[in-house]
C-alpha cells in the first residue's frame, strides 16, 4: 500500500485547492512545500511585526475562488475575511492627474462622463460586451479542461455564446481598449492592467480586455494578508485529513511502468502515492523532475519552447505613519505607447530604470492590523523586470536601485516617503526565484499569449506519465489567484474521472 493516495507538490493556491478537494473526495492527501509557509506568490510573511504580502495584493473574481469552497460545503466568505476594495483602483497618470474608478458601475459612468464625455458611449458598449463575455466565459472557460481539440470543441459546445466573442481572442489587449476608448487619459488608466496577465498591451490577447471592467464585479483584500486565502484552502483540507509538510523540497517525480508512484525529496526520502499533482512550474517539472525517457521528443521540444512569464520586482515599504495615498489600490500609469515601448526597448533589453510605474498597494488601508499601531505597509509592484539585467546583476544593482526608486517614488507619488520608512525591502526576480523556486522569478509560470494558452499550455492531465496531474499557473486557465483556484478544481475533477 502506498503512503498516500495523492501527493501534491507545492502549497500554492492551486495545489492547496486541488489537495483540499481531493481530501474531500475521501483520498489521503499529502501536500509538500519547499518553503515554511503556504501560498506561493499569494502569501504573506512577517518582518519585524509587519505582515507583508509577497506578490498578489488584491483578488478579483472572488466568486470563482468560492466555487472551490462551495464544493467543500463552505464558502470563501466563511473561511476568509474578505474586505471590499472601493474604489477598485485609482490611476495616477503620468501628467500628475488622477482618476478613481468606483466599484459601482453607475458611479463609474459619472467618472467617465466627467473625465472623457466622448468616451461615455464607448464605456457603455465596452461594459455590455465584456459583461456578455464574462457571463459566457465564467460558465465554462474557468473550470473546463482545455488540453485537447476535443476539450475546446466541448468548451464551445457547452458555452456557444463564447463564439460571439471570437474577435476578442484574435485582437490584442491594446486593440480592444482602443476599440472602445479614444481619450488618452482613459486609455492610460487601463494600460497597466495588461500586466495583470503578464504581457504589454500590444502582445496580450484581447479577451484580457475584460480586466478593467471585471473589477466592477468586486475587488477584495483578505484580512490577515493575502495568505489568508491559501490558508482557507489549507483549513478546509486539514478538516478532512489533508496533511501539509513544510521545508520539503521535491527532487524527482517517481515513475514506475509509465505511472507516477510518488516523489523523491532533496534529502533522498521517497514518499509513495498513486497520484501526483504538480503545482510547480511545468517547464521545471518536465525538464528537471521527470525522467526524460517518459517524454516524447516532440513534447520535449514543446516544453523547451515555452518562455517563462515576466518577473515583477517588488518593493515592500514599512512606514511609521500614514502614506500620502487615498485608496488601497493605486496604479502609477504611463500612456499605453510608453508601456509598450518599455517592454520592447527596456524590459526585453535587460534595462530596469528607477523611473517606475506599477501598483501601490496600501494593504494597511484595508487591514490596519497588519502593522504595529499607527504604522503602515505599502507593497509596491514595480514594472516588469528582466531576469537578466544588461551589464550587471540584480544582486549587484539591488541596493542602488532601491535607493533610486524610493527617491523617485517620493518625488512623484509619495511626498515625505523617506522620512516615513522604517524598513524598505527590495525583492528582485532573482530573490523570487530563490525563495519560491519559481524559475527566473516568473509570476505567472509561463507566458500567457494565445499560443501559450488553452491546448497549447501544458495539459492538466499529463500526456506522459499516468497519474500525474498539473495545477497552478502553468496549466489552463493560467496565472492569477482565481484562475489557479480553477486549475485546482479542474485537476480534482480529472482525478475524480480517471482515478477511481
Amino acid at each position, binding site marked *: 500500500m502506498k503512503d498516500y493516495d495523492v501527493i501534491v507538490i507545492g502549497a500554492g493556491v492551486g495545489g492547496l485547492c486541488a489537495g483540499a478537494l481531493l481530501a474531500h473526495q475521501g483520498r489521503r492527501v499529502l501536500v509538500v512545500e519547499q518553503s515554511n509557509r503556504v501560498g506561493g506568490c499569494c502569501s504573506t510573511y512577517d518582518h519585524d511585526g509587519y505582515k507583508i504580502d509577497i506578490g498578489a495584493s488584491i483578488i478579483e473574481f472572488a466568486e470563482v475562488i468560492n466555487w472551490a469552497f462551495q464544493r467543500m460545503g463552505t464558502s470563501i466568505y466563511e473561511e476568509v475575511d474578505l474586505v471590499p476594495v472601493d474604489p477598485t483602483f485609482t490611476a495616477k497618470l503620468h501628467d500628475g492627474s488622477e482618476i478613481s474608478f468606483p466599484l459601482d458601475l453607475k458611479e463609474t459612468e459619472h467618472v467617465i462622463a466627467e473625465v472623457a464625455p466622448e468616451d461615455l458611449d464607448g464605456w457603455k458598449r465596452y461594459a455590455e460586451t465584456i459583461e456578455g463575455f464574462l457571463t459566457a466565459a465564467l460558465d465554462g472557460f474557468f473550470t473546463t479542461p482545455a488540453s485537447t481539440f476535443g476539450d475546446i470543441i466541448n468548451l464551445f459546445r457547452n458555452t456557444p455564446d463564447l463564439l460571439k466573442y471570437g474577435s476578442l481572442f484574435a485582437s490584442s489587449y491594446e486593440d480592444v481598449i482602443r476599440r472602445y476608448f479614444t481619450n488618452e487619459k482613459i486609455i492610460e488608466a487601463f494600460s497597466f492592467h495588461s500586466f495583470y496577465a503578464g504581457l504589454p498591451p*500590444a502582445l496580450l490577447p484581447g479577451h484580457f480586455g475584460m480586466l478593467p471592467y471585471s473589477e466592477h464585479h468586486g475587488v477584495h483584500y483578505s484580512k490577515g494578508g493575502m495568505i489568508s486565502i491559501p490558508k482557507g484552502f489549507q483549513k478546509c483540507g486539514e478538516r478532512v485529513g489533508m496533511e501539509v509538510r513544510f521545508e520539503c523540497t521535491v527532487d524527482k517525480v517517481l515513475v514506475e511502468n509509465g505511472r507516477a508512484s510518488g516523489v523523491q525529496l532533496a534529502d533522498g526520502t521517497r514518499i509513495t502515492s498513486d497520484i501526483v499533482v504538480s503545482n510547480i512550474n511545468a517547464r521545471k517539472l518536465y525538464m528537471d523532475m521527470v525522467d526524460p525517457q517518459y517524454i*516524447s521528443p516532440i513534447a520535449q521540444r514543446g516544453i523547451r*519552447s515555452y518562455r517563462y512569464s515576466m518577473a515583477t520586482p517588488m518593493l515592500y515599504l514599512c512606514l511609521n505613519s500614514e502614506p500620502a495615498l487615498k485608496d488601497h489600490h493605486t496604479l502609477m500609469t504611463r500612456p499605453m505607447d510608453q508601456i509598450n515601448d518599455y517592454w520592447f526597448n527596456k524590459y526585453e533589453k535587460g534595462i530596469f530604470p528607477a523611473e517606475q510605474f506599477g501598483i501601490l498597494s496600501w494593504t494597511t488601508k484595508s487591514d490596519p492590523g497588519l502593522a504595529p499601531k499607527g504604522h503602515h505597509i505599502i507593497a509596491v509592484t514595480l514594472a516588469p523586470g528582466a531576469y537578466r539585467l544588461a551589464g550587471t546583476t540584480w544582486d549587484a544593482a539591488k541596493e542602488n536601485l532601491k535607493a533610486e526608486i524610493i527617491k523617485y517614488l517620493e518625488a512623484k507619488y509619495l511626498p515625505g516617503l523617506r522620512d516615513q520608512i522604517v524598513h524598505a525591502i527590495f525583492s528582485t526576480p532573482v530573490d523570487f526565484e530563490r525563495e519560491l523556486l519559481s524559475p527566473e522569478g516568473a509570476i505567472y509560470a509561463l507566458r500567457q499569449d494565445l499560443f*501559450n494558452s488553452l491546448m*497549447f499550455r*501544458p*495539459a492538466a492531465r499529463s500526456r506522459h506519465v499516468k497519474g500525474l496531474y498539473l495545477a497552478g499557473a502553468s496549466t489552463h486557465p493560467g496565472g492569477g489567484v482565481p484562475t489557479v483556484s480553477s486549475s485546482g478544481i479542474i485537476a480534482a475533477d480529472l482525478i475524480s474521472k480517471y482515478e477511481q
Partner: protein
Amino acid sequence: MKTLRVLTYITAGLLLVYALLSESRKRYVKNLVSQVPDLIPRYFV
C-alpha cells in the same frame, strides 16, 4: 505550377494585409507567427 501560383497569391495577399496593419497589430501578429513552429510540439505537452 497552378498550386505554386495560388500559394504566391495567398502569400502576397497576406503580406499586403500585414503591411496595412497598425504597428501594434503588427507586433501582435509577429509574436504569434514567431510561435507557429512550436504549436504542434506544445500540443503534445
